[in-house]
């Protein structure tokens, strides 16, 4: 008897959430799904949420964020929800190939008339518009633009080793001897996806923008000799990295540069948010940044966007959210803490300082070559990029460049069928 009483007592508070879930399905809710839980990104999202709550009172806001820098864990959860026709009201997606795949899978609603009615297409940067439009229809509102081809470093470490930031990947490799002597790591790495981003920046630096773009639209075969040569450079770059002691995500990866135990790290400009906002480090003094070797005048681009999923429970609230996301104020506020740039082209560079001012100038320069990021969904859709990740796993654990190229190429051909 006693035992039964105990169980009953334990069951009552435990049942509460279940009952609440049954009865409290709020009519006026907004659920936003993202993978922004780390320093910098979490604050950026919080800014948008705050603006939304001030503007649209009475909406019950629900922040569903699944941790993991590259979003690989989050995307898995999201896919299950989409497959079960149980989408959030809006979810984070990368424009380009990843978003087009959602369109092909028929899980996104067409936002063309919404975008045109609000004249968002006139104010967004043409590169982002191009990557959110498929067959004349638009499917997402980009909130920011990120740059992936950036090499972050600790100026005092370079000074001590008496080297300048490298102009080519070969330069970087040759600097290794000096860093090694000082018992420093030349290049810090993070989770598996950071190796993919490193790969794309090496390809970009070695092959340049035009060939790089063609790798992803079928215009260039991966098995061509210049690609394989670039892949071999990548293998050499890995050799001077701390891959064996890789950090578990991009923040601890940057920590090594910040602490001065590593010289460089290839990280997108979310690094800026972490270093400047979360860690309060000073630009040019505590940290500095250049484009990755060989990619001057190129902008390896990705953009976070929000969508309207088909069957979203509160589409009207979603559109309210998208208006906040698209607003000039929202984009500035968001980028200031996240380290990104606004996806709009009508934001003056003077809104920003330090790294962001430098970056903003290049982004708005019409001569800059904008190319899509591979690691962040702009260049390759999930089906192909899963196979690329598979092949990269083999390549980075002792595989051959030639085999990697052949696998990526054949996976591309299969994904086109």
């Amino acid at each position, binding site marked *: 008897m006693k035992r039964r009483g105990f169980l009953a007592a334990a069951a009552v508070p435990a049942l509460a959430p279940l009952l609440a879930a049954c009865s409290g399905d709020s009519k006026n809710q907004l659920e936003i799904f993202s993978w922004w839980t780390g320093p910098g990104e979490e604050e950026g999202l919080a800014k948008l949420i705050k603006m939304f709550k001030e503007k649209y009172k009475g909406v019950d806001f629900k922040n569903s964020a699944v941790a*993991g820098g590259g979003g*690989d864990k989050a995307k*898995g959860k999201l896919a299950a929800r*989409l*497959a079960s026709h149980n989408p959030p009201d809006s979810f984070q997606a990368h424009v380009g190939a990843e978003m087009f795949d959602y369109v092909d*899978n028929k*899980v996104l609603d067409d936002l063309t008339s919404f975008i045109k009615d609000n004249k968002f297409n006139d104010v967004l940067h043409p590169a982002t518009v191009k990557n959110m439009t498929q067959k004349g229809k638009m499917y997402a509102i980009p909130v920011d633009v990120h740059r992936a081809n950036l090499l972050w470093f600790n100026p005092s470490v370079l000074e001590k080793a008496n080297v300048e930031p490298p102009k080519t990947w070969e330069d970087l490799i040759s600097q290794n001897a000096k860093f090694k002597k000082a018992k420093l790591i030349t290049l810090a790495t993070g989770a598996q996806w950071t190796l993919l981003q490193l790969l794309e920046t090496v390809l970009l630096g070695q092959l340049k923008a035009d060939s790089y773009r063609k790798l992803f639209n079928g215009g260039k075969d991966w098995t061509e000799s210049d690609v394989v040569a670039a892949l071999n450079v990548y293998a050499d770059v890995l050799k001077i990295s701390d891959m*064996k002691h890789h950090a578990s995500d991009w923040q601890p990866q940057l920590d090594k540069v910040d602490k001065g*135990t590593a010289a460089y790290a290839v990280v997108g400009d979310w690094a800026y948010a972490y270093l400047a906002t979360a860690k309060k480090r000073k630009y040019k003094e505590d940290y500095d940044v250049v484009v990755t070797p060989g990619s001057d005048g190129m902008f390896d681009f990705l953009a976070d966007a929000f969508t309207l999923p088909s069957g979203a429970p509160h589409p009207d609230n979603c559109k309210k959210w998208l208006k906040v996301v698209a607003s000039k104020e929202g984009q500035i506020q968001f980028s200031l803490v996240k380290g990104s740039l606004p996806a709009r082209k009508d934001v003056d560079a003077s809104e920003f300082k330090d790294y962001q001012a430098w970056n903003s100038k290049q982004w708005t320069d019409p001569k800059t070559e904008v190319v899509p990021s591979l690691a962040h969904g702009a260049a390759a859709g999930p089906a192909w990029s899963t196979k690329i990740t598979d092949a990269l796993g*083999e390549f980075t654990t002792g595989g051959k460049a030639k085999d990697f190229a052949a696998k990526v190429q054949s996976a591309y051909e299969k994904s086109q069928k």
Partner: protein
Amino acid sequence: MRRIRKWGPGLLLISPSLVLLAVFVYGFLGWNIRVSLTTWQGINPSYDSAGMKNYSDLMDDSIWWRDVQHVLIFTLVFVGGALLLGFFLALLMEKGIRGENLFRSIFLFPMAVSFIATGIIWSWLLDNGEGSNLAGINKLFSAVGLNFLENDWHKADSSWAISAVALPAGWALSGYIMALFLAGMRGVPDELREAARVDGAGEFRVFWHVVRPMLWPTVMAAVVMLMHISLKTFDLLYALDYNSPKLETPALYMYRDITDGYYYASGATIATVLVFGIAVIIVPYIWYTMRSERRS
């Protein structure tokens, strides 16, 4: 009529369970095989037939074979290690020692901890930082002068890196094996041992000739339990280093396949092969257990 009256209520009592298990175990296993014969790649289901293509593709897939190699290495090291350690611990405690309950509890408690928590805790213990970043077990080794034992654990540059996972897995399950052996050893009737002792046999000979032959069923039970756990291991690897190509096994490959690239058909193929791999071990064991039960 009499038969129904006789067996009817019994069947009624277990039929809810039987129906549920028929659907959830066998129905779903069949459905999974069906998915493995389709072309389903994408968020939404598609059941266009692909014949055996997914299976032949899998046999040509180097990632699959790499992952099979990983799980075999892990199984070898983990099953062997946990078996030896469990046996050794049981041997130490066999004859009853002071504070036996306390010892047994300490060796067994890791089993009550989830693999996720175990993985998170051990990912820090198996840290492979160097110099001022030296941490975890490596730091202990260095503190007691055993520097040569320091290593990169599951991040090592070797296809055997996954064998480092046998440490957390063994930590979690060796106590279980100890308990099995302890029960097995104590199931040997004392009269048999006494008889041997009267014949002048030393303790070692008593163990070797009397106890050891009677432990085979325990060894088999332990091996089968450990092997099927090892083939299924998912959470521990997921928590230790998600997406690391060095730690991927078929169980993780299947999950990554369906979540990253929506390769449902090929994921179902991997899962089907995995079921058959486990069935090869489990079915004979269940059959053997049932047969010996009927005999006794």
